């Protein structure tokens, strides 16, 4: 009787190279080599460009406006996003993040100002110092986070362009790149995304342009490389991936207001006593928590910003 003793070094059936592949082995090697080369090209270019736009995140001081509430985890901040340019579901922006090309990045400033101009990202933010600002973020959808942003004061940046007395408002635009950004190929919103602030809101020391979070550059899904953060307003006011800023005399059009003027006002200050027509704004769920907490007027920044709206009916100007 013939017994086959299986030794450790014997190849089993699944390890045997497929015959067709064996016969074609030279072509296989050639193909895989050229494929590797092709795959390397974008990797190389990515390496070079990201080197060029490096910001210095060392020795960043924590700003006095920072809250000492418990931070939302980096994981949650970067996997639960509303960034329709990268998809409509909360998890889409993270999955599609690579479609956003952030280098090189220029920001153009024009409109009612003495010194309009266009700068590369680093140059653009250079007049101001990077600071860490730990802010609450309240989404209009009744959830909230606490995010350690790294950014610069918006007012400091805007003053460099010397807005004139006609500059009553500031308008912001997100990158328009339908070839790369999958969400912009469908007319969900009137692209590009745009937002606006009154000039005194923009100049308020709480308003920042963020370039990072958790001490590192912004992940693409959070609005890299440059986004607005206005912590006393609903999250959608804090426009992502800004390429252009314009000083205007008239109140500018804003994206969500164009879609649903009854649901999303120009001001969109966080206000528990003005409900969204389809849900209550009285409470919010802090991401990572089970129970809900009460929503605070101006997202808890009343002391700092209430003066901006003195005499205004917040129910009318929602």
């Amino acid at each position, binding site marked *: 009787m013939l017994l086959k003793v299986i030794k450790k070094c014997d190849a089993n059936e699944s390890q045997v190279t497929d015959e067709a592949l064996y016969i074609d082995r030279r072509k296989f090697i050639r193909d895989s080599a050229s494929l590797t080369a092709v795959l390397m090209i974008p990797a190389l270019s990515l390496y070079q460009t990201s080197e060029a736009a490096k910001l210095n995140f060392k020795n960043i001081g924590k700003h006095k406006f920072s809250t000492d509430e418990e931070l939302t985890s980096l*994981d*949650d901040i970067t*996997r*639960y996003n509303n960034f329709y340019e990268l998809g*409509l579901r*909360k*998890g889409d922006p993270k999955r599609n993040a690579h479609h956003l090309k952030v280098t090189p990045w220029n920001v153009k400033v024009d409109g009612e100002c003495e010194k309009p101009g266009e700068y590369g990202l680093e140059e653009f933010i250079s007049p101001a110092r990077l600071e860490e600002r730990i802010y609450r973020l309240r989404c209009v*959808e009744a*959830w909230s986070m606490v995010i350690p942003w790294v950014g610069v004061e918006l007012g400091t940046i805007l003053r460099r362009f010397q807005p004139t007395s006609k500059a009553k408002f500031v308008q912001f635009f997100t990158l328009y790149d339908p070839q790369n950004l999958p969400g912009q190929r469908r007319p*969900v*919103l009137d692209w590009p995304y745009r937002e606006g602030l009154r000039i005194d809101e923009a100049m308020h020391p709480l308003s920042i342009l963020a370039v990072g979070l958790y001490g590192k550059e912004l992940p693409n899904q959070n609005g890299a490389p440059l986004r607005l953060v206005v912590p006393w307003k609903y999250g959608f006011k804090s426009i992502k991936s800004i390429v252009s800023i314009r000083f205007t005399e008239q109140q500018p059009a804003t994206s969500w207001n164009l*879609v649903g003027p009854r649901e999303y006002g120009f001001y969109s200050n966080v206000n528990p006593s003005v*409900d969204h*027509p*389809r*849900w*209550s704004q*009285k409470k919010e*769920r802090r*991401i*990572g928590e*089970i*129970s*809900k907490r009460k929503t605070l007027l101006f997202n808890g920044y009343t002391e700092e910003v209430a003066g901006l709206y003195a005499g205004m009916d917040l129910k009318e100007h929602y």
Partner: protein
Amino acid sequence: MSDLAIVRFVKPALFSVCLLPVTCYTFWFFTDSLGANPIEAVTRRTGDWALRILLITLAISPFRRLTGWNRLAQYRRMLGLFAFFYGCVHLSLYIVLDKFFDFREILDDVIKRPFITAGFTSFILLLPLVITSTHKMIEILQHRWIQLHRLVYLIAMLAVLHFWWMVKIDTREPAIYAIILAALLGFRLVFYLQRKMLKTS
């Protein structure tokens, strides 16, 4: 297939399949696999399944007529009750984990927000159908049972509206359900008209 095989095998199998979504979501909920906002995720997904199973229930009659596969009717009640089951879980999650038993807030929602009005009405209208789903009730009510259970068409329409009015901007998904429902109701209308014409001719 024999009746015995159906009792022994098909029904329990279908029962288990219907329990799959709730089993999966419970598992994912406790293993932190539902993203950053798991409560929102389970609330939405149980609503999805309530609507899906309701539409499957409504698909049985047309499918039976098209294929002549009359055995299908035996699963209709179970499916309908599962739609109700997912509706219950969906509503409970809203009451417990979204509103924390704040009934004033809930009443406010039901009155002021059309999408919640639609969803809530849809659920309430399901109750008489659930109560009258036993053999005994069918015997007692007879032809009125059929009339009563036509409420399911209104319930399904309200459920689709509930979803449609809830979404912020992207109506593709509720539109798919609306199209399926329209097809299922359209089939019934065609069948009804055909029968009527046969009678008159």
